[in-house]
């Protein structure tokens, strides 16, 4: 079972073993503007996704 990544209402499946920073790079997102949550805890960009992980990427950038 692959891991799932949620960002701004969209969900995508990612192969287990992929690191968060690889996901961010693939999505064209800067790690400086995102925090990543797996379950109830925050993870750093070197975290490797496991089977069944549900990762939520939260944008830290706000503007106006």
């Amino acid at each position: 079972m692959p891991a799932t990544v949620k960002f701004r209402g969209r969900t995508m499946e990612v192969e287990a073993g992929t690191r968060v920073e690889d996901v961010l790079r693939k999505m064209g997102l800067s790690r400086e503007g995102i925090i990543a949550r797996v379950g109830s805890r925050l993870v750093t960009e070197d975290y490797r996704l496991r089977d069944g992980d549900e990762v939520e990427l939260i944008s830290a950038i706000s503007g106006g």
Partner: protein
Amino acid sequence: MRCSRCRRLAVINLRAHRLALCERHFVQRFLEVVERAIRRYSLMHRSSKVLVAVSGGKDSLALWDALTELGYSADGLYIDLGIEKQDYSRISREKAEAFAEQRGLRLRVFSLKEEYGSAMPELRRGSRELCSVCGIVKRHVMNRVALEGGYEVLATGHNLDDEASVLLANLLRWNTALAARQAPRVEAWHEKLRPKVKPLCLLSERETATYAFVRGIDYVSELECPFSAGATSIAVKEALNRIEEHSPGTKLYFYTQFLKHREIFAGEEEEKAPVRECSSCGFPAGGELCSFCRLLLKSRLGGEKGDNRADSRVG
């Protein structure tokens, strides 16, 4: 990745500082940096009566939480702009109210619609500079509430990304007058105004988001102001983050070195028109009416087609 201090699992990697931190040590450092900014830039005294402008977003709620943790006497002010699109104002207000209630803090709610009969959508009518209109409204209300409530200092949740991006945007246009005014503490230039301070100015947006998450602060995360979509400030922040990605620490260096060398812009400020008192609200004004009362007047006239008489009851 492990915490550089205790080897527990890290929740954030601060590449600019070559530091990874667990929840406990991150919160500890966050509070230390807030206190450092307060002392380094003489933002306020321990005994100052502070009014924190809260929007329901991560930065302002994180600031209110941090100031309270550090022992400052801080009340909150939520300005209900009356933005119905995407339920923006209702949701933001609920977040601010829930935060205050959970922590037993005092939140003052100021509704534009209730106080003036006009909400943000009416006040911004016909203006292309939406964010600057909002700025005029917020500044006026913050000063009014601070004056009436006897507060000595107004604190806002502007973070390092906000400050660095404003600085870059001003320099890209060589707007030296605006650059000359940028500071972590903006002094009041009239007895009815209050100094504005930015205690989060040394902390990045990612750090305030992490602090809010770790501290269990429920903030407006998925929703942005519907009027700020496509705002230039977001594009500048993203550009700075691309540079930061390549050279960690650039944002902090750019901003703190600017503060160190600010005097090179001294004398660039635009001369203020002789200060008068607004004939409608009594706050300082450059002309007959202050900027806020001019907006209010414009919004009311906009509702009366063909009638361009001035309304003497404005404010």
